[in-house]
Protein backbone atom coordinates (compact mmCIF):
# COMPACT_ATOMS: atom_id res chain seq x y z
CA UNK A 1 0.00 0.00 0.00
CA UNK A 2 2.91 2.25 0.92
CA UNK A 3 4.54 2.13 -2.51
CA UNK A 4 1.20 2.98 -4.09
CA UNK A 5 1.00 6.12 -1.98
CA UNK A 6 4.61 7.01 -2.81
CA UNK A 7 3.90 6.47 -6.50
CA UNK A 8 0.89 8.75 -6.47
CA UNK A 9 2.82 11.36 -4.49
CA UNK A 10 5.78 11.37 -6.87
CA UNK A 11 3.68 11.44 -10.04
CA UNK A 12 1.40 14.17 -8.64
CA UNK A 13 4.40 16.25 -7.59
CA UNK A 14 6.13 15.80 -10.92
CA UNK A 15 3.13 16.84 -13.03
CA UNK A 16 2.44 19.73 -10.69
CA UNK A 17 6.00 21.00 -11.07
CA UNK A 18 5.82 20.69 -14.83
CA UNK A 19 2.59 22.69 -15.02
CA UNK A 20 3.95 25.28 -12.60
CA UNK A 21 7.24 25.67 -14.51
CA UNK A 22 5.32 26.10 -17.73
CA UNK A 23 3.07 28.70 -16.08
CA UNK A 24 6.02 30.62 -14.60
CA UNK A 25 8.52 30.50 -17.41
CA UNK A 26 6.20 30.84 -20.39
CA UNK A 27 6.28 34.46 -21.64
CA UNK A 28 2.81 35.94 -22.24
CA UNK A 29 2.56 38.11 -25.34
CA UNK A 30 -1.00 38.02 -26.78
CA UNK A 31 -1.12 38.39 -30.56
CA UNK A 32 -4.43 38.71 -32.48
CA UNK A 33 -3.08 36.62 -35.37
CA UNK A 34 -2.66 33.70 -33.03
CA UNK A 35 -6.42 33.42 -32.52
CA UNK A 36 -6.99 32.73 -36.24
CA UNK A 37 -6.80 29.05 -37.27
CA UNK A 38 -3.51 27.99 -38.91
CA UNK A 39 -4.25 27.09 -42.56
CA UNK A 40 -0.74 26.78 -43.98
CA UNK A 41 -0.28 30.51 -43.84
CA UNK A 42 -3.05 31.51 -46.23
CA UNK A 43 -6.16 33.36 -45.06
CA UNK A 44 -8.81 30.82 -43.97
CA UNK A 45 -11.56 30.29 -46.57
CA UNK A 46 -14.20 29.63 -43.97
CA UNK A 47 -14.63 31.06 -40.48
CA UNK A 48 -15.82 28.70 -37.77
CA UNK A 49 -16.16 24.92 -38.02
CA UNK A 50 -18.73 23.67 -40.50
CA UNK A 51 -21.07 20.75 -39.80
CA UNK A 52 -19.20 17.69 -38.45
CA UNK A 53 -19.70 14.63 -40.64
CA UNK A 54 -21.05 11.35 -39.24
CA UNK A 55 -18.13 9.13 -40.37
CA UNK A 56 -15.74 11.12 -38.16
CA UNK A 57 -18.04 10.55 -35.19
CA UNK A 58 -18.36 6.79 -35.75
CA UNK A 59 -14.61 6.23 -36.03
CA UNK A 60 -14.02 8.33 -32.91
CA UNK A 61 -16.56 6.26 -31.00
CA UNK A 62 -14.99 2.99 -32.10
CA UNK A 63 -11.55 4.26 -31.15
CA UNK A 64 -12.76 5.27 -27.73
CA UNK A 65 -14.25 1.82 -27.18
CA UNK A 66 -11.11 -0.09 -28.11
CA UNK A 67 -8.79 2.30 -26.35
CA UNK A 68 -10.60 1.81 -23.08
CA UNK A 69 -10.34 -1.94 -23.65
CA UNK A 70 -6.57 -1.66 -23.90
CA UNK A 71 -6.47 0.33 -20.67
CA UNK A 72 -8.32 -2.54 -18.96
CA UNK A 73 -5.60 -4.96 -20.03
CA UNK A 74 -3.10 -3.62 -17.48
CA UNK A 75 -5.09 -4.26 -14.26
CA UNK A 76 -6.43 -7.55 -15.74
CA UNK A 77 -2.92 -8.76 -16.49
CA UNK A 78 -1.83 -7.88 -12.95
CA UNK A 79 -4.87 -9.53 -11.39
CA UNK A 80 -4.48 -12.75 -13.38
CA UNK A 81 -0.74 -12.99 -12.90
CA UNK A 82 0.24 -16.55 -11.98
CA UNK A 83 -3.23 -18.02 -12.66
CA UNK A 84 -1.92 -19.86 -15.71
CA UNK A 85 -4.33 -20.94 -18.45
CA UNK A 86 -7.48 -20.05 -16.48
CA UNK A 87 -6.41 -16.44 -16.25
CA UNK A 88 -5.51 -16.37 -19.91
CA UNK A 89 -8.94 -17.85 -20.82
CA UNK A 90 -10.75 -15.14 -18.84
CA UNK A 91 -8.73 -12.47 -20.58
CA UNK A 92 -9.31 -14.08 -23.98
CA UNK A 93 -13.06 -14.10 -23.34
CA UNK A 94 -12.99 -10.39 -22.57
CA UNK A 95 -11.04 -9.68 -25.77
CA UNK A 96 -13.24 -11.98 -27.89
CA UNK A 97 -16.40 -10.06 -27.00
CA UNK A 98 -14.86 -6.78 -28.07
CA UNK A 99 -13.27 -8.31 -31.18
CA UNK A 100 -16.69 -9.53 -32.27
CA UNK A 101 -18.06 -5.98 -31.91
CA UNK A 102 -15.13 -4.61 -33.92
CA UNK A 103 -15.57 -7.20 -36.70
CA UNK A 104 -19.27 -6.36 -36.90
CA UNK A 105 -18.52 -2.64 -37.22
CA UNK A 106 -15.89 -3.31 -39.87
CA UNK A 107 -18.29 -5.47 -41.91
CA UNK A 108 -21.00 -2.81 -41.59
CA UNK A 109 -18.59 -0.55 -43.45
CA UNK A 110 -17.64 1.96 -40.82
CA UNK A 111 -14.28 2.46 -42.54
CA UNK A 112 -15.62 2.84 -46.07
CA UNK A 113 -15.78 6.57 -46.60
CA UNK A 114 -17.06 7.10 -50.15
Amino acid at each position, binding site marked *: MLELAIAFLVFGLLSGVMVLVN*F*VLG*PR*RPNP*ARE*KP*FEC*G*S*PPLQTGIGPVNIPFFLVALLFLLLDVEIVFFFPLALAFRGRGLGGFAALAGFVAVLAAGFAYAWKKGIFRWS
Partner: protein
Amino acid sequence: MSGFDFLTTRLEAALGWGRKFSLFHYPFITACCGMEYMSTACAHFDIDRFGAGLTRFSPRQADLLLVVGTISHKLAPVLRTVYDQMLEPKWVIAFGACTVSGGIYQNYAVVQGIDRIVPVDVYIPGCPPRPEMVLDGLLKLQDKIQHQKQDWRWARKD
Protein backbone atom coordinates in the same frame (compact mmCIF):
# COMPACT_ATOMS: atom_id res chain seq x y z
CA MET B 1 24.21 41.62 -6.33
CA SER B 2 21.31 40.81 -4.01
CA GLY B 3 20.23 37.20 -3.42
CA PHE B 4 17.25 37.53 -5.79
CA ASP B 5 19.50 38.77 -8.63
CA PHE B 6 21.75 35.77 -8.13
CA LEU B 7 18.71 33.51 -8.47
CA THR B 8 17.41 35.15 -11.66
CA THR B 9 20.81 35.11 -13.38
CA ARG B 10 21.16 31.39 -12.56
CA LEU B 11 17.57 30.92 -13.82
CA GLU B 12 18.30 32.83 -17.04
CA ALA B 13 21.45 30.85 -17.65
CA ALA B 14 19.50 27.64 -17.16
CA LEU B 15 16.67 28.92 -19.40
CA GLY B 16 19.17 29.90 -22.11
CA TRP B 17 20.85 26.52 -21.90
CA GLY B 18 17.50 24.68 -22.07
CA ARG B 19 16.14 26.72 -24.97
CA LYS B 20 19.21 26.64 -27.16
CA PHE B 21 19.53 22.86 -27.19
CA SER B 22 15.90 22.05 -27.90
CA LEU B 23 15.10 24.21 -30.94
CA PHE B 24 12.06 22.87 -32.80
CA HIS B 25 12.34 24.50 -36.22
CA TYR B 26 9.55 25.24 -38.69
CA PRO B 27 11.09 24.76 -42.17
CA PHE B 28 9.49 27.50 -44.29
CA ILE B 29 10.98 26.09 -47.51
CA THR B 30 10.30 27.56 -50.95
CA ALA B 31 13.18 27.33 -53.40
CA CYS B 32 16.63 25.95 -54.20
CA CYS B 33 17.97 26.38 -50.67
CA GLY B 34 15.47 23.69 -49.74
CA MET B 35 17.70 21.15 -51.46
CA GLU B 36 20.60 22.25 -49.32
CA TYR B 37 18.34 22.17 -46.26
CA MET B 38 17.55 18.53 -47.09
CA SER B 39 21.26 17.73 -47.09
CA THR B 40 21.74 19.59 -43.83
CA ALA B 41 18.85 17.85 -42.12
CA CYS B 42 19.73 14.36 -43.34
CA ALA B 43 22.30 11.84 -42.29
CA HIS B 44 25.40 13.30 -43.94
CA PHE B 45 25.52 16.68 -42.17
CA ASP B 46 22.83 15.96 -39.58
CA ILE B 47 21.44 19.09 -37.95
CA ASP B 48 20.18 16.85 -35.14
CA ARG B 49 23.61 16.76 -33.55
CA PHE B 50 22.91 20.27 -32.26
CA GLY B 51 19.48 19.56 -30.82
CA ALA B 52 17.63 21.28 -33.68
CA GLY B 53 16.69 18.18 -35.63
CA LEU B 54 12.99 17.94 -34.91
CA THR B 55 11.01 19.66 -37.64
CA ARG B 56 7.59 20.91 -36.51
CA PHE B 57 5.26 21.73 -39.39
CA SER B 58 2.94 23.83 -37.27
CA PRO B 59 3.90 27.27 -35.98
CA ARG B 60 2.20 26.46 -32.69
CA GLN B 61 4.85 23.91 -31.79
CA ALA B 62 7.94 25.55 -33.32
CA ASP B 63 10.24 28.10 -31.76
CA LEU B 64 12.63 28.63 -34.66
CA LEU B 65 11.34 29.89 -38.02
CA LEU B 66 13.83 28.68 -40.63
CA VAL B 67 13.04 30.73 -43.73
CA VAL B 68 14.65 28.83 -46.64
CA GLY B 69 14.58 30.06 -50.24
CA THR B 70 13.24 33.03 -52.17
CA ILE B 71 10.29 34.88 -50.68
CA SER B 72 8.26 36.50 -53.44
CA HIS B 73 5.78 39.29 -52.85
CA LYS B 74 2.95 36.79 -53.32
CA LEU B 75 4.33 34.72 -50.45
CA ALA B 76 5.09 37.64 -48.12
CA PRO B 77 1.72 37.68 -46.30
CA VAL B 78 1.98 33.91 -45.79
CA LEU B 79 5.38 34.34 -44.14
CA ARG B 80 4.03 37.17 -41.98
CA THR B 81 1.02 35.07 -40.90
CA VAL B 82 3.19 32.07 -40.00
CA TYR B 83 5.54 34.30 -38.00
CA ASP B 84 2.68 35.92 -36.11
CA GLN B 85 1.16 32.55 -35.27
CA MET B 86 4.32 31.27 -33.64
CA LEU B 87 4.44 31.27 -29.87
CA GLU B 88 7.01 33.17 -27.83
CA PRO B 89 9.96 32.82 -27.39
CA LYS B 90 10.67 32.59 -31.11
CA TRP B 91 13.68 33.18 -33.34
CA VAL B 92 14.09 33.53 -37.11
CA ILE B 93 16.97 32.34 -39.28
CA ALA B 94 17.28 33.77 -42.83
CA PHE B 95 18.74 30.86 -44.81
CA GLY B 96 20.26 31.78 -48.16
CA ALA B 97 21.07 34.97 -50.06
CA CYS B 98 17.46 35.44 -51.26
CA THR B 99 16.16 35.70 -47.71
CA VAL B 100 19.06 37.91 -46.62
CA SER B 101 18.86 40.48 -49.39
CA GLY B 102 16.81 39.25 -52.33
CA GLY B 103 19.95 37.61 -53.73
CA ILE B 104 20.34 37.55 -57.50
CA TYR B 105 16.66 38.41 -58.00
CA GLN B 106 16.34 42.19 -57.77
CA ASN B 107 13.10 42.64 -59.68
CA TYR B 108 9.39 43.32 -59.29
CA ALA B 109 8.59 39.90 -57.90
CA VAL B 110 10.99 39.22 -55.00
CA VAL B 111 11.06 40.69 -51.48
CA GLN B 112 14.53 42.23 -51.12
CA GLY B 113 15.36 40.52 -47.84
CA ILE B 114 12.85 39.06 -45.37
CA ASP B 115 13.81 41.52 -42.64
CA ARG B 116 11.29 43.77 -44.38
CA ILE B 117 8.61 41.38 -43.14
CA VAL B 118 9.83 39.60 -40.03
CA PRO B 119 12.58 40.44 -37.51
CA VAL B 120 15.55 38.16 -38.26
CA ASP B 121 18.05 36.86 -35.70
CA VAL B 122 20.72 35.13 -37.82
CA TYR B 123 21.47 35.65 -41.50
CA ILE B 124 23.11 32.79 -43.41
CA PRO B 125 24.53 34.06 -46.72
CA GLY B 126 25.27 31.80 -49.69
CA CYS B 127 23.37 30.76 -52.76
CA PRO B 128 22.83 28.09 -51.53
CA PRO B 129 24.91 28.10 -48.36
CA ARG B 130 26.88 24.93 -47.82
CA PRO B 131 25.53 22.69 -45.04
CA GLU B 132 28.53 23.56 -42.88
CA MET B 133 27.62 27.27 -43.17
CA VAL B 134 24.08 26.41 -42.07
CA LEU B 135 25.33 24.56 -39.00
CA ASP B 136 27.63 27.47 -38.21
CA GLY B 137 24.66 29.81 -38.45
CA LEU B 138 22.75 27.56 -36.07
CA LEU B 139 25.63 27.65 -33.57
CA LYS B 140 25.68 31.44 -33.77
CA LEU B 141 21.96 31.45 -32.97
CA GLN B 142 22.54 29.15 -30.02
CA ASP B 143 25.19 31.52 -28.64
CA LYS B 144 22.76 34.38 -29.08
CA ILE B 145 20.04 32.48 -27.21
CA GLN B 146 22.40 31.60 -24.39
CA HIS B 147 23.59 35.15 -23.82
CA GLN B 148 20.44 37.12 -24.54
CA LYS B 149 18.13 38.47 -21.83
CA GLN B 150 15.75 35.56 -21.26
CA ASP B 151 12.07 36.29 -21.54
CA TRP B 152 9.82 34.81 -18.88
CA ARG B 153 6.63 35.74 -17.04
CA TRP B 154 8.05 38.07 -14.41
CA ALA B 155 11.23 39.03 -16.26
CA ARG B 156 11.94 42.72 -15.76
CA LYS B 157 11.45 44.53 -19.05
CA ASP B 158 14.52 46.80 -18.52
